């Protein structure tokens, strides 16, 4: 059937186009016409529709995310900030680290294995695109209640998919989160973080400049993946005889990505690219328009040159395809031979599909016919921006005024039963059923991985320089108060980094929310962004990038606002890291930081069907002092483990179980002391000979410290309650195998 060309579009201005089916609003369609001075061709329509989607254009979030730039802490370490594929920070010794989190929530609900697998694949390509070798991944996950049928359907597949892809890429999985809450039923969150390392001079950017330079598409062939929506257009406009249903899920090929990584790294090393961009959401539409938009000239693409896996694809579909494992590079003509030779060595298909032009437009032809003629910026960056209505939901103040009560243990037997119940609950229970499906050893640089407070990777074998990464969110606090919740998540993540002995350096985030068209959700979002921006500024950390995932809701019920925060830290000597597990007997145990008795948002309250009434208020000045205390005190800490989900009870049990060395502690107000999750606390073990030192450090940083007991034995003794390590271990480890087989 006939191709819709620019000529035809000019001659037939009144052809009706299915813009609404593609998700464009009337005014957005009108704007495209104004930009072009005519109706768009169907290919142009396809490009605009997908690039102006929420996912690609950030149209609902942009006005808020601006704060990350405006309030930004000016860090000398920041080499590449928000806006590129991933931020890059300087960690010294000429090394640069890039890291970022992304979500793959919706695809993982539809096809758990492939959705999660391609989520990993996508974030790894973002990191690779910066010029870095990917060195580790993490996977913050959220599911409906652990025993809900849908959780049983999606969790095993999601876990296997993350492992299947990440393991095959040779990337150690060094941490993540698994949280169950009923609001995620039908809306699991699959966030994936990747870390990469490079030398400063190796940083690559996504730009196309230099007239006559070539546009090379390399990696997997293009198929009909992820173009469900656009098929509407292709079939309606053109050929009703086509396969009507294009797959909306993508299947990953981790092997293809592994060789693509090696191929790219060899290409980078030989300095063969001027700019490079991975193909993710919106495929070629995104890659070509972003490369051209960030460059100095225009671009000409010959779309028929794109190697196809499915020859029936229309040009619109080729432009939209989200086939995985593809990259697009700008290569100078004199370097193309060398480039192609490296691709051949790795058996990677590479095709010159166009070139950079001296013009200002992105021209795409199909067999010589002009089908796209647009200013690239209008596609890539000048999408619509919405200032969506915001309204504080009623529940916030209602809860704030409410009271709640949960049963608290009083005598020794009750304390014992309560601790065992808490540590067996899915949110606190041992996660090794999941994490043992991930390779944490590959590459041979993993110093700490799950279940430690942060993942820690050696960067340099000679100097022992390393980096630590942690991801955190307490969505229940965010629900009670999204502003404080965001601050607390960042504080917790920093605390986890410092607990392991590393210094927080930079922040990434993945903001998972319900529908932006719901003013209540938009309020949660706005408050979250404001909180995160304020907290990053106060803690002196640059936000280097992130990701927003909206429309996580089932019917009118949104998920808990879930800002997942990732913090990167640097440690000068990985041999000095502090592990979480109590290493030996006869050490003194201290709790650093003060608790208050509020159980709002705690796991203990959750276990009793309560969310509480008020989030804790973040004390960032104290958190900063705490981080410094932890870094200064690092030499005297034999172990350190932060107090977060599950309170001191969970922290104690995890510290004991790691090396199966017991402890005895005495606590006043035992129930609150055990189960309150007051932020800003860490459990540390020191030799008694270091008593003076810890006391003077605490004084120096004005941090309250409490000696609560000593280590040793084969039990955890809490006041009169005696729980054997065996009992603890059984309760802690049985839950997941029982639930998931």
């Amino acid at each position, binding site marked *: 059937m006939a191709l819709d060309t620019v000529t035809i579009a000019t001659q037939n201005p009144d052809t009706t186009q299915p813009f609404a089916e593609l998700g464009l609003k009337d005014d957005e369609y009108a704007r495209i016409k104004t930009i072009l001075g005519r109706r768009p061709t169907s290919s142009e329509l396809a490009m605009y529709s997908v690039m102006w989607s929420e996912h690609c254009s950030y149209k609902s979030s942009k006005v808020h995310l601006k704060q990350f730039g405006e309030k930004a802490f000016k860090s000398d370490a920041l080499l590449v900030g928000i806006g590129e594929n991933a931020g890059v920070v300087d960690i010294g010794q000429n090394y640069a680290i890039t890291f970022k989190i992304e979500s793959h929530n919706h695809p993982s609900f539809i*096809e758990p294995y492939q959705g999660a697998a391609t989520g990993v694949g996508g974030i790894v390509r973002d990191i690779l695109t910066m010029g870095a070798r990917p060195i580790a991944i993490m996977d913050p996950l959220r599911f409906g209640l652990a025993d809900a049928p849908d959780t049983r359907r999606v969790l095993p597949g999601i876990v296997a998919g993350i492992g299947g892809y990440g393991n095959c890429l040779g990337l150690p999985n060094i941490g993540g989160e698994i949280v169950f809450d009923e609001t995620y039923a039908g809306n699991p969150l699959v966030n994936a973080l990747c870390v990469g390392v490079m030398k400063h001079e190796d940083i690559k950017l996504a730009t196309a400049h230099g007239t006559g330079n070539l546009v090379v598409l390399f990696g997997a062939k293009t198929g009909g993946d992820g173009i469900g929506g656009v098929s509407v257009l292709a079939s309606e406009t053109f050929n009703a005889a086509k*396969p009507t249903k294009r*797959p909306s899920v993508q299947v*990953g090929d981790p092997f293809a990505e592994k060789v693509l990584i090696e191929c790219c790294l060899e290409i980078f090393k030989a300095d063969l690219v001027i700019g490079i961009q991975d193909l993710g959401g919106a495929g070629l539409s995104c890659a070509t328009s972003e490369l051209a938009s960030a460059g100095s000239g225009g671009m000409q693409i010959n779309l028929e040159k794109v190697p196809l896996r*499915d020859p029936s694809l229309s040009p619109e579909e080729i432009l939209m395809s989200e086939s*995985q494992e593809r990259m697009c590079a700008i290569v100078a003509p004199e370097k193309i031979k060398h480039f192609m030779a490296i691709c051949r060595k790795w058996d990677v298909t590479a095709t010159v599909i166009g070139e950079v032009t001296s013009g200002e437009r992105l021209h795409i032809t199909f067999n010589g016919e002009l089908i796209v003629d647009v200013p690239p910026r209008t596609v890539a960056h000048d999408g619509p921006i919405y200032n969506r209505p915001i309204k504080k939901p009623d529940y916030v103040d209602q809860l704030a005024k409410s009271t709640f009560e949960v049963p608290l243990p009083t005598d020794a037997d009750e304390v014992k039963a309560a601790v065992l119940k808490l540590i067996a609950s899915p949110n606190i229970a041992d996660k090794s059923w999941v994490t043992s499906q991930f390779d944490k050893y590959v590459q041979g640089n993993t110093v700490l991985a799950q279940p430690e407070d942060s993942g820690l990777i050696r960067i340099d074998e000679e100097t022992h320089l390393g980096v630590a990464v942690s991801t955190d969110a307490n969505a229940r606090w965010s629900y009670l108060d999204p502003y404080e919740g965001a601050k607390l998540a960042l504080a917790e993540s920093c605390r986890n980094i410092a607990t392991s002995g590393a210094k927080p350096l930079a922040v990434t985030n993945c903001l998972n929310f319900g529908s932006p068209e719901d003013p209540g959700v938009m309020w949660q979002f706005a408050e979250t962004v404001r909180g995160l921006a304020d907290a990053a500024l106060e803690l002196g950390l640059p936000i280097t990038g992130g990701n927003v995932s909206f429309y996580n809701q089932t019917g009118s019920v949104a998920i808990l606002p879930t800002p997942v925060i990732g913090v990167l830290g640097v440690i000068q000597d990985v041999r000095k890291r502090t592990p979480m597990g109590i290493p030996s007997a006869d050490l003194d145990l201290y709790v650093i930081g003060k608790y208050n008795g509020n159980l709002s948002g705690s796991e203990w309250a959750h276990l009793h069907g309560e969310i509480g009434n008020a989030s804790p208020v973040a004390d960032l000045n104290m958190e900063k002092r705490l981080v410094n205390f932890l870094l200064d005190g690092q030499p005297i800490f034999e172990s350190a483990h932060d107090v977060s989900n599950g309170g001191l009870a969970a922290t104690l049990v995890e510290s004991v179980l790691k090396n199966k060395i017991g402890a005895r502690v005495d606590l006043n107000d035992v129930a609150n002391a055990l189960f309150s999750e007051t932020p800003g606390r860490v459990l540390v073990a020191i030799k008694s000979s270091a008593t003076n030192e810890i006391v003077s450090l605490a004084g120096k940083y004005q941090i309250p410290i409490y000696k609560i007991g000593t280590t040793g034995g084969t039990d955890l003794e809490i006041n009169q309650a005696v729980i054997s390590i065996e009992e603890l271990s059984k309760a802690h480890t049985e839950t997941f195998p029982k639930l998931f087989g």
Partner: protein
Amino acid sequence: MAKIIVEVMLKPEILDPQGQAVASALPRLGFTFAKSVRQGKRFEIEVDGDPTPAQMAEVEKAAETLLSNPVIETYVVKVEK
């Protein structure tokens, strides 16, 4: 005793990395006959006696829900005697 066979293949439009790996290995080993290769699963299910129509309906249901994922795969049920 009869055998029911369920064959599950990826839909033609879905990427099949397994089939691709075979397709590209064959010529390296000197085998040139293949134009394309797709790889799928084959389940052999033993049942007592000749399957009844009600049983076959059950098999169909199991094939659709457990043995295949209709989002990306198709299946065929056969009886072997």
